[in-house]
């Protein structure tokens, strides 16, 4: 590609300091965006922890009333190992799936929000322009 322009036109003078002002404005917007992400992630984290408490209690209760631990303990008995397929199906059927799914989802939200929060805190704005 040609380095020289095809036509010579009158010069256009870029105002002094405009580049710095534009970069500063972009950095301001980036900072605002980071703060928003931090607020949302902290809010999501707090909400997920708050929800995990009752859900966790419900999950523990569900495990207690189900026969899950009883079926699980059978796996240690060599006499019933021949029926491992049936025992496995019973173990799976006795799982409190709804409470478990909810707990996993809330833990996922908590981990995601921690990830976003850490990224927002650790990403540094550029202090000077090239």
């Amino acid at each position, binding site marked *: *590609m*040609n*380095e020289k*322009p*095809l*036509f*010579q*036109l*009158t010069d*256009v003078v*870029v*105002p002094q300091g*405009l*580049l710095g*002002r*534009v*970069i500063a*404005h*972009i*950095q301001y*917007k*980036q900072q605002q965006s980071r703060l928003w992400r931090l607020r949302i992630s902290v809010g999501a984290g707090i909400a997920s922890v708050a929800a995990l408490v009752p859900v966790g209690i419900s999950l523990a209760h569900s495990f207690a009333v189900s026969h899950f631990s009883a079926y699980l303990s059978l796996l240690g008995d060599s006499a019933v190992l021949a029926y491992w397929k049936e025992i496995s199906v019973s173990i799976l059927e006795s799982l409190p799936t709804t409470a478990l799914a909810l707990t996993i989802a809330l833990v996922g939200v908590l981990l995601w929000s921690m990830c976003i929060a850490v990224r927002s805190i650790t*990403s*540094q*704005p*550029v202090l000077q*322009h*090239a």
Partner: protein
Amino acid sequence: MQDHTDEVLIRLYVEGDDNALVVLTARYFDAIYRYCYRLVQDTAVTEDVVQDTFIKVWKSAKTFREGMVFKPWLYRIAHNTAIDFLRKKKMITFSNIGNQEVIEEIFTDESVNIMEETIAQEEKDTLTKKIESLPEHYKQVLLLRAEEMLTLEEISMTLQKPLNTVKSLYRRALKKLGSDSNS
């Protein structure tokens, strides 16, 4: 980082290196300012357009895909931002920005070169005034080709027009400039 290509810099920015965007901004700042000023002809508006352009670049950096070329992508953002400002200020009507049919005329590359050479001999000020008074669709193609040195393919990507249309607009713009010189 100054030696990195535009595409590498935008990828570095998307991966988390904010300094890469600063380098890209500094690299194209004057050229984008110049192009926008030629379109809008107003210093204050140009400053707003240029600022909005680079903010849009920052916001849409993640949409820049492997295989895309940065320069026409950037110029497209700048062009669209300038046109939006002009529309808001009603400085151009919709029909002025290339909605007319462009009839393909037969030019050889040699005749285009002759036109370019003839026009290049004009005085700077006279030539600048003539280009700035051209209809918008001619002016845009001419500025991008002659001053910003984009290839016709890049102009086609910038203006989102078919290549043949861009070629035709360019030739007609040169012809119009040439005929204005003779009148």
